[in-house]
C-alpha cells in the first residue's frame, strides 16, 4: 500500500521539476511579452487609456498596408513552395542527399544583412545581372527597387526553410506506397496527387508557416531591396517604435500581426494525418 502510493507521487514530483525550465521560459519570454504588447496597445501618446489605436488600425492606410503585406507574403510563400517542392523531391532521389541538403542550408548561416547588401551590388545598374542582360541583348533594366527584386531576394532567403520540412516529409515517405500506386494502375500525376502530396502535406504546411509568418513582417529588405516601394506590417511597427515613438500604435499593429499568425497556424496545423502516422511507419513508431 505504502509502496504503491509513493511511487507515482515521486514520479509526479520529478515530472513537475522537469517542467520548471519550460514553464519559466514560456512565462518570461512568450506570455509576458505578449501580455505587455496587448497592455501597451490600449494607451495613447500621453499615456491615457484609449481604444483609439484599434480604431486607427481600421483606417485606410493600415488596412491597405495589411492587404499588401498579405499579398507579398503570399507571393513569397507561393514561389518558395514552387521551387522548394521539386528541389526537395530531387534531393531525396540523390545519392548523397544529406550533403546536398547541407549545401542548400549553408547560405542561411551567413548574416542576412550581408546577403542583402550583396544583392544591392548584384542587381545594380552596373552589376553582373545587368551586364548579363546586356550581353544577351535585352539591355539594362532597373532591377533593384522593384517588386521583382523584393520577391526574388525574399524567396532566396526563405527557400532553405521551405525545403527542410518538405525534404523530411518526402524522406519519410515509404517508397513502397508509390510502387503500390503504380502497380494499381495510377499514372505519375495521379500518384503525386493522390499519394505523395497528401502524405507530405504536413511538411508543406510547416514550410508555409515558417515562410509566410516571417514574410508578413519583413522590414529591412523592404527598404534596402524594394526602396520602400513595398511596405509591410513590420515596416510600420518599426517606424511606430523608433521614429514616432508611439508605442501604443506600434503595439496595436503587433497585436493584429499576432492574431493573423494564430489564424494562419489554425489553418496550417491540421490533424496528424501525414506520412508519419500512416501505413507501415505507424508500426515503427
Amino acid at each position, binding site marked *: 500500500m505504502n509502496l504503491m502510493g509513493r511511487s507515482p507521487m515521486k514520479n509526479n514530483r520529478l515530472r513537475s521539476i522537469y517542467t520548471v525550465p519550460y514553464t519559466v521560459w514560456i512565462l518570461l519570454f512568450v506570455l509576458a511579452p505578449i501580455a505587455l504588447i496587448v497592455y501597451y496597445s490600449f494607451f495613447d501618446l500621453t499615456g491615457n487609456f484609449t481604444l483609439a489605436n484599434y480604431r486607427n488600425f481600421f483606417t485606410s492606410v493600415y488596412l491597405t498596408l495589411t492587404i499588401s503585406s498579405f499579398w507579398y507574403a503570399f507571393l513569397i510563400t507561393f514561389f518558395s513552395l514552387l521551387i522548394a517542392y521539386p528541389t526537395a523531391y530531387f534531393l531525396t532521389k540523390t545519392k548523397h542527399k544529406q550533403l546536398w541538403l547541407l549545401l542548400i542550408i549553408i547560405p542561411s548561416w551567413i548574416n542576412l544583412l550581408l546577403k542583402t547588401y550583396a544583392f544591392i551590388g548584384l542587381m545594380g545598374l552596373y552589376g553582373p545581372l545587368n551586364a548579363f542582360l546586356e550581353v544577351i541583348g535585352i539591355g539594362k533594366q532597373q532591377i533593384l527597387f522593384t*517588386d521583382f527584386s523584393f520577391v526574388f531576394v525574399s524567396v532566396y532567403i526563405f527557400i532553405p526553410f521551405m525545403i527542410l520540412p518538405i525534404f523530411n516529409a518526402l524522406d519519410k515517405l515509404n517508397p513502397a506506397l508509390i510502387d503500390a500506386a503504380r502497380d494499381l494502375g495510377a499514372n505519375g500525376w495521379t500518384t503525386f496527387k493522390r499519394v505523395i502530396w497528401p502524405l507530405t502535406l504536413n511538411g508543406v504546411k510547416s514550410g508555409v508557416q515558417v515562410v509566410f509568418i516571417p514574410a508578413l513582417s519583413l522590414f529591412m529588405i523592404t527598404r534596402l531591396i524594394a526602396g520602400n*516601394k513595398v511596405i509591410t506590417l513590420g515596416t510600420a511597427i518599426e517606424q511606430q517604435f523608433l521614429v*514616432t515613438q508611439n508605442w501604443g500604435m506600434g503595439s496595436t499593429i503587433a497585436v493584429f500581426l499576432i492574431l493573423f499568425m494564430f489564424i494562419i497556424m489554425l489553418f496550417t496545423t491540421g490533424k496528424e494525418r501525414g506520412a508519419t502516422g500512416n501505413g507501415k511507419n505507424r508500426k515503427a513508431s
Partner: protein
Amino acid sequence: MKSIYQAAILILVVSGALLFLNAELNEGSKSGKNTITVYNWGEYIDPDLIKQFEEETGIKVIYETFDSNEAMMGKIEQGGTSYDITVPSEYMVEMMAEKNLLLPIDYSKVPNIKNIDPYFMDLPFDLGNKYSLPYFWGTVGIAYNPTLLEGQTFESWDNLWDPSLKQRVILVDSARETVGMSLNSLGYSLNSTDLDELREATDKLKSLSPNVKAVIGDEVTQLMVNNEAAVSLTWSGQAADMMYENEDIDYVVPEEGSNLWFDNIVIPRTAKNIDGAHAFINFMLDPEVAAQNADYVGYSTPNLTALNLMDPEVVEDERFYPDEETRSHLEVYKNLGLELLGVYNELFLEFKMDMR
C-alpha cells in the same frame, strides 16, 4: 554523445577565455580611472583628435556611436551606460531638455565658447544655450550628377517633378525631410502644423511617385558615388561625402528654402565625469581642433575662429557655407510634439504606400 560533451566543454572553455580577455582589456583602458564616455554619430570626429585630447588632458576616452537621435535618446533614458557627452540634433535637444535628460553646461569651464559664431548661439531650441553648444551644422538639399542628366538643374524644388527624371530621384526615408521638402515646394513652412497644408503637401508628394526610384537611408551615398542614381534629396554633409568620392556630383539648396540643422554637443544626465565632459567640450571648441575636425568630417563648423584656419576654398563654398542672405530662407526644425510627428509619419507612410 561523447562528441557533444566535448563540443560543449570546448565552447565553455573558449567563452570563458574570451570573457576573461575582455575583462582584462577593459581593465587596461580604465587604468587611469579618469575616463569619459563619448556617444556620437558614426564618422563624426577625427580619431586623431581623440588621441590628442587624451595626451593633453590625461583623460581616457571611451567612444561609442549611434545612427539615430531616437535610438540615442532611448539608451540615455535607460541609463545603462554612463555617457558623459552626446550629440543630439536640435529638435532632440529640446525633447531631451523637456524630459530632464540634460545637465546645464557650466560656461566658466568652457572659455573657448568665444570662438563660436554668435549667429549659431541662443537659438529657439535651447535659448541661452543652457544645455547645448553647436557642433556641426548643415542644410537639406539636392545632390545630383550632371553627367547623368540632360541639362536638368535644380533652382527650385519643383524641378524634381520634371518628367525627364522618371524613376531617377532618390528620397530620404525620413518623414520630416521628405514631407518638409514638399511643404517647402508649396511655399509653406516645414514646421507647418496646419492639417490642410500637410494634406496638400502629401498629395503633391504622391504626384512625384513616377519620378521616385527609391526611398532609402544612408545607402544613397554608395548609389550616387557608383553613378547608380542621378538625383537625391539629402543632407549637405552626406552630399559632401558623395562629392569627395565622385567629383561629378554637385549639391544645391533650392531657392524656396529648406531645413537648416544643427547637431549639438550636450552633457546627458547619465554623466559621471562632469569635469571631464567640460574639458572635452572646451577642447572641441579650440579653433585648431575644430578646423581639423571639420576638414576630416566634411560638415560645416560653427566655429568662427576655426574658419580662418581652414582652406579658403572650402569656407567660401556657398554650397556648404551659405551666406546669411541664403540662410535667412532656411528654417530650423521645431519640436512639433509626438502627436504631430505621428501625423507627419502617417502621411509619409501614405505616400510610400502610394508609390507603386
